[in-house]
């Protein structure tokens, strides 16, 4: 099971967008793409499903094993090294002090410095004790997993129950991560993945030990989607993105947050609770209008298409989506990326396409690759997808909004001439985590569920389609295939750089019209053009251009 420790990715991602103004982040000390920070939900996830139970044992064993090995090491290692380690544990503070501060927060952004600065409590300083503590903790969690009911509690109560049942107090919990870390350092353990699970537990412990608010622990014995199979899960979910960005604000005096998908821009200060000095949304400066967003609402048969629950399983809709993809695959060169709202939906629709024979027809034009929850498979698929694009065979990549691909992978140039967003990627509204989070948001920030949901969905959508164009030499088309996109409240939440290119004529298209537009667009884009941009639309600013701008700014 992949463990997405999302906060770890919230560090300086160099500003990508708009890629036009060299002097932009000169004054900033740091800047980060907010994309990730807000999505720091579902932090930890221990699975004890049948398949994983073995792993659970393995976990225990590893605990045991590691402990034994540790003991062994103690025996083996000479006194001074032991002392050295001991010292480090004792005056962790000093140690930390020596380390450059930035490293500290980079290494562990989620934990405020005060923890780091404190010394490790005595009762887990010795390795044996620490391991014993871990043992107890694991056993406790194990116990919790036995439960038949869905529980949702705050860290406080959870910690309390741990204390009562496992006799581990908050302080100890808080230091698990740290302690394990140092332990591993000492023993120079390299094969960390063997210890992944134990680390997970430590992380978990540390987090609950640290934060009293903004998180909640959710224990679900069953997966809602398949309520008969027992699949108990303990989830620690973070509702408050501001926690993650907090250290950044503390650490730097000037923070510039840039992103291609910050919209509506006013929502962010509330989510990340800070008050912006300036908040600007820039339009994209392009030599030619090289992106062509379209909203496709109807299939060729003029029937509406959508992924609303009532419609998504309708064969008509499925077929229309299929036809759309087929037509496009015959008209668009090289790479096409498709995003679906969820894995389950993707599986479903791809299956039915297969049955309808649409998939086979598509295969005649392009190879089809699918993203799976498995990282390795996905990377492999991506590789081959790229190859297929390079060698001219043409390929389609099926992917999922909010998936790994949607988050991190670029489909620029010929790797993505077209991206189709099938449906509006709303979150799975019944999930406990989401509910909990919405509740939290309502209480703390007075943000309405509806707003947040659409905002979140559209941001996801924008982010998906944003994969396709990465520079102004590049060009690509974006199809939002759902009738709901044509509604103003939805559309208006799209970022400006998309809206500015979204002609009114492209707001309510059917498949055949979209096809025609696509052909036109591709031909137009294939024509040679002057890279520098000419006259009115100058896109590459020179030094003096900037100075002039500054001048103007001064004057007004």
């Amino acid at each position, binding site marked *: 099971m992949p463990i997405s420790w999302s906060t770890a990715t919230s560090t300086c991602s160099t500003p990508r967008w708009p890629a036009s103004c060299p002097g932009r982040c000169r004054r900033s000390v740091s800047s980060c793409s907010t994309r990730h920070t807000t999505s720091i939900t579902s932090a930890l996830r221990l699975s004890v499903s049948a398949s994983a139970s073995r792993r659970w044992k393995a976990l225990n064993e590893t605990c045991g094993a590691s402990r034994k090995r540790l003991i062994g090491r103690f025996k083996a290692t000479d006194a001074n090294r032991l002392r050295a380690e001991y010292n480090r544990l004792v005056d962790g503070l000093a140690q930390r002090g020596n380390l450059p501060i930035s490293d500290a927060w980079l290494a562990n952004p989620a934990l405020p410095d005060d923890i780091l600065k404190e010394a490790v409590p005595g009762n887990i300083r010795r390795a044996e004790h620490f391991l014993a503590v871990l043992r107890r903790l694991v056993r406790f969690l194990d116990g919790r997993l036995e439960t038949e009911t869905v529980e949702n509690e705050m860290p406080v109560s959870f910690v309390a129950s741990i204390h009562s049942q496992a006799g581990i107090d908050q302080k100890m919990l808080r230091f698990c991560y740290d302690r394990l870390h140092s332990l591993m350092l000492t023993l120079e353990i390299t094969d960390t993945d063997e210890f992944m699970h134990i680390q997970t537990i430590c992380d978990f412990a540390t987090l609950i030990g640290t934060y009293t608010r903004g998180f909640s622990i959710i224990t679900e014995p069953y997966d809602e989607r398949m309520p008969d199979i027992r699949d108990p899960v303990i989830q620690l979910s973070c509702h408050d993105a501001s926690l993650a960005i907090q250290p950044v604000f503390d650490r730097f005096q000037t923070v510039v947050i840039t992103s291609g998908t910050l919209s509506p821009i006013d929502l962010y200060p509330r989510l990340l609770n800070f008050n912006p000095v300036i908040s600007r949304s820039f339009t994209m400066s392009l030599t030619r209008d090289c992106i062509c967003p379209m909203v496709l609402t109807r299939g060729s048969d003029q029937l509406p298409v959508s992924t609303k629950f009532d419609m998504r399983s309708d064969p008509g809709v499925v077929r229309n989506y299929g036809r759309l993809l087929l037509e496009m695959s015959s*008209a668009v060169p090289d790479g096409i990326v498709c995003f679906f709202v969820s894995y389950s939906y993707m599986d479903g629709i791809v299956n039915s396409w297969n049955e309808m024979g649409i998939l086979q027809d598509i295969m005649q034009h392009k190879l089809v690759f699918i993203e799976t929850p498995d990282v390795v498979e996905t990377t492999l698929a991506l590789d081959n997808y790229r190859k297929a694009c390079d060698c001219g065979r043409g390929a389609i990549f099926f992917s999922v909004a909010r998936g790994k691909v949607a988050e991190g992978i670029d489909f620029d140039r010929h790797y993505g001439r077209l991206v189709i967003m099938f449906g509006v990627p709303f979150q799975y509204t019944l999930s406990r985590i989401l509910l909990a989070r919405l509740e939290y948001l309502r209480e703390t920030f007075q943000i309405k569920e509806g707003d947040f949901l659409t905002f979140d969905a559209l941001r996801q959508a924008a982010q998906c389609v944003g994969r396709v164009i990465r520079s102004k030499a590049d060009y690509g088309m974006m199809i939002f295939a759902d009738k709901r996109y044509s509604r103003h409240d939805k559309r208006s939440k799209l970022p400006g750089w998309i809206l500015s290119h979204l002609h*009114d004529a492209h707001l309510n298209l059917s498949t055949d019209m979209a096809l025609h537009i696509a052909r036109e667009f*591709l*031909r137009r884009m294939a*024509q040679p053009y002057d890279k520098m941009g000419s006259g009115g639309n100058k896109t590459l600013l020179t030094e003096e251009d900037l100075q002039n701008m500054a001048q103007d700014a001064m004057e007004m």
Partner: protein
Amino acid sequence: MYGGGGGGGGFNAPSTASGRRRNQEDEEEEEEEAGEGRVLEAWERAYADDRSWEALQEDDSGLLRPIDTKTLVHAQYRRRLLLRSAATAAARIQKGLIRYLYIVIDLSRAASEMDYRPSRMAVVAKHAEAFIREFFDQNPLSHVGIVTIKDGICHRLTEIGGSPESQIKALMGKLECSGDSSLQNALELVHGYLDQVPSYGHKEILILYSALNTCDPGDIMETIEKCKKSKIRCSIIGLAAEIFICKHICEETGGSYTIALDESHFKELLLEHAPPSPAIAEYAAANLIKMGFPQRGAEDLISICSCHKKIKSGAEGYICPRCKVNVCELPTECRTCGLTLVSSPHLARSYHHLFPVQPFDEVSSIYPNKLGQKGGQKCYGCQQSFINPDSQSSLHVRCPKCNQHFCLDCDIYIHESLHNCPGCESQRSSSS
């Protein structure tokens, strides 16, 4: 009267990038001012790009009349011309005049698409024919072969040869399309053929590509390398959209890659390949070729022609100067002694590439007859007076050498077709 305007608009719009951009812009604004609910239907979209109706004006009596596209056409012609003359700036420009060209025509499934009327295939064939004629007109000593791709395999329609007719006939015969297309197979095949041509020949491939993908048996990159090694210049004209691999091929082999916007643009792009490209020095080895210039046989003599083995009276045959055998048509290779037989007109056809007429410089109409003493108000070439009422601009050009003035039409004609300056030709001093 519609035809003129529409045609003009349609023709001008794609060719100039700026024109393109302008069109898009006013298309945008047009659509912005079109209200919220309003949706351009598909057929409307087709016209939204080239807004040919804007080219129409009304004259005082309310009659429609198309704007005179003459100046526009002339402007873009001049751009072409100057471009060309800039390319051949060097006084002694080397041109690859002996070309071995394989035209690869994609007859895969995609060629049956109807976005070109009546179908891509038909359009391609039609213009390919025109191209072949034009090609031989411009490069008489060159050879052309046709290869078609169909069902993923590709086979040679006609082997490389010197006469247009056979090629065209073969092409017109074979017009149905199916299956996938494979660039690699095509390149492999043609590469195989082109490896045999003599070293002084310039090897070229021109691919007219309808499909948007290629199903290759092996690694196409290797094939590209091979072509590159054996100095084969691949150019591709795409009918639908830009494909990465095609771009790659052309960049690697020094060819040009263009995408046709519509039929007229396609024709334009295709014909750009007719004039010989400036020879890249190492692409072909310069060499002296021994050639024979046979004379028509005398009326009375009856002989057997070596090509068809038929009895011919000498009149419709030529006599190889070396081995005195009778051949039917020129240019060809003597079957007996292998001597390349050409007629001097064949060579002469391509001389204008060597001695181009230098571009005339434009003269504004403010002082029409100050410079041209002889030219005066009239075009020296066609005697048409520059001051014609209907066209408001009496812009004309002047030959820098003989200072004669010419009207725009003559200017185009002289540079595109005639290739001598009448002024210079009718002066003893400069005529030699």
